[in-house]
């Protein structure tokens, strides 16, 4: 199953060339997975108003605790910084003291000045560090739903395929999938699917699959434009329909090379 990645890549968020989880599946992919029993379809049970209220309360508590913890860490950080810069701070205080003394007219020798300062050695614990405002705190963005959820089986809700066209697409998809082809959406080439002989990230697709009803009249011009498309992009156009027994039948369309 290939699917399409549609989520934000947490390590590289501000672009949409490379996307991350979650994966979005085509309806045909889901049908095959359910038919073969490889997957379960779940739906979340709806959340009532009381539970919503409780969730809000829990979030507020979490945020407050988070803020307190951040402030603590911030204070520690500032103290560490001061220890590192201690010599600079002392120099600065010494210079300031000397300027003040000179300005006052007193001409005291340098040693005296240093002595006075030593008495008033900066006591780290007494230094007041102004706390930061709450609006500057770091807020965690969850990359997964953080709440405990209750799920129920939703397979009955899956009504695909219903129309004739959908049934053909689904059956053709399953048949080609069982034949070991990798299949993705074919909208880039105007077809229903693109079929690859191997992993799509390593191969170019070989076939553009077009699903038609077995008794659906195809005008000659349509056949020609399909053939033209295929030859221009180096892919074979595969016309697919279901025979009267419900089995997929294929016809390859190729340009003859006669101009």
């Amino acid at each position, binding site marked *: 199953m290939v699917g399409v990645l549609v989520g934000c890549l947490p390590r590289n968020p501000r672009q949409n060339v490379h996307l991350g989880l979650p994966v979005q599946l085509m309806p045909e992919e889901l049908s095959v997975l359910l038919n073969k029993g490889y997957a379960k379809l779940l739906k979340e049970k709806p959340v009532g108003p009381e539970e919503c209220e409780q969730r809000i309360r829990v979030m507020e508590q979490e945020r407050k605790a988070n803020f307190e913890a951040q402030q603590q860490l911030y204070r520690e950080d500032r103290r560490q910084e001061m220890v590192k810069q201690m010599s600079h701070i002392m120099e600065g205080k010494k210079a300031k003291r000397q300027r003040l003394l000179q300005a006052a007219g007193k001409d005291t020798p340098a040693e005296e000045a240093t002595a006075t300062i030593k008495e008033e050695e900066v006591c780290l614990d007494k230094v007041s560090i102004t706390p930061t405002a709450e609006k500057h705190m770091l807020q965690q963005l969850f990359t997964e739903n953080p709440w405990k959820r209750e799920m129920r089986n939703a397979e009955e809700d899956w009504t695909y395929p219903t129309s004739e066209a959908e049934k053909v697409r689904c059956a053709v998809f399953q048949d080609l999938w069982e034949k070991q082809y990798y299949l993705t959406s074919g909208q880039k080439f105007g077809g229903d699917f693109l079929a690859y002989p191997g992993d799509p990230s390593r191969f170019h697709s070989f076939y553009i699959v077009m699903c038609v009803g077995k008794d659906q009249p195809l005008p000659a011009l349509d056949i020609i434009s399909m053939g033209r498309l295929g030859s221009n992009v180096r892919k074979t156009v595969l016309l697919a329909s279901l025979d009267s027994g419900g089995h997929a039948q294929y016809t*390859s369309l190729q340009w003859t090379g006669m101009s």
Partner: protein
Amino acid sequence: MTECMESSGDHPVLEEFLLHHSCDTAKARLAFHVYLNLAEVRGWRDVKLHFCKKLQTPFVTGRPTLGGDLEAAFPMAMEDSLTHQQIQSLFSSLSADDHSFNRVMLAVCASDTSIVYYKVSNDIVKPEPLDASDARKQEWEQRAAKRRIQAAECIESYCQHQSQQHDEMPP
């Protein structure tokens, strides 16, 4: 197209075909047009006109290359349409001399007498890889160059021959 072909005498092949098979005239003429195109323009060998009783339509067989495989061409007017089921039935219905076809050329004919051919095959056919089509293109170009040289040589020798004759003519 039909006007120019409704001359006083049809091509013997077409006449014989219409004689032997109770076929709709328009379809027969369409098929004959494909027959002429394949035989005279494309240079196919052993080109023959057939009538498929099952589908009540004419079709053409031939060999694109001397000694090559037999191919079938199914004529179709540009205004026509085919269902996938009908295309599938071509593989089971068309046969010539006990030779059935797993691959048929769909010959779509326009009212201006141009024909477009597309291969329809009864199975999943891999597209041609890049190197194979490059090789084919190169070969085609080489052949075309050869033909041009040959044509130029022929013209040259003819002109020389003509001037010689002119010189030798009595006054």
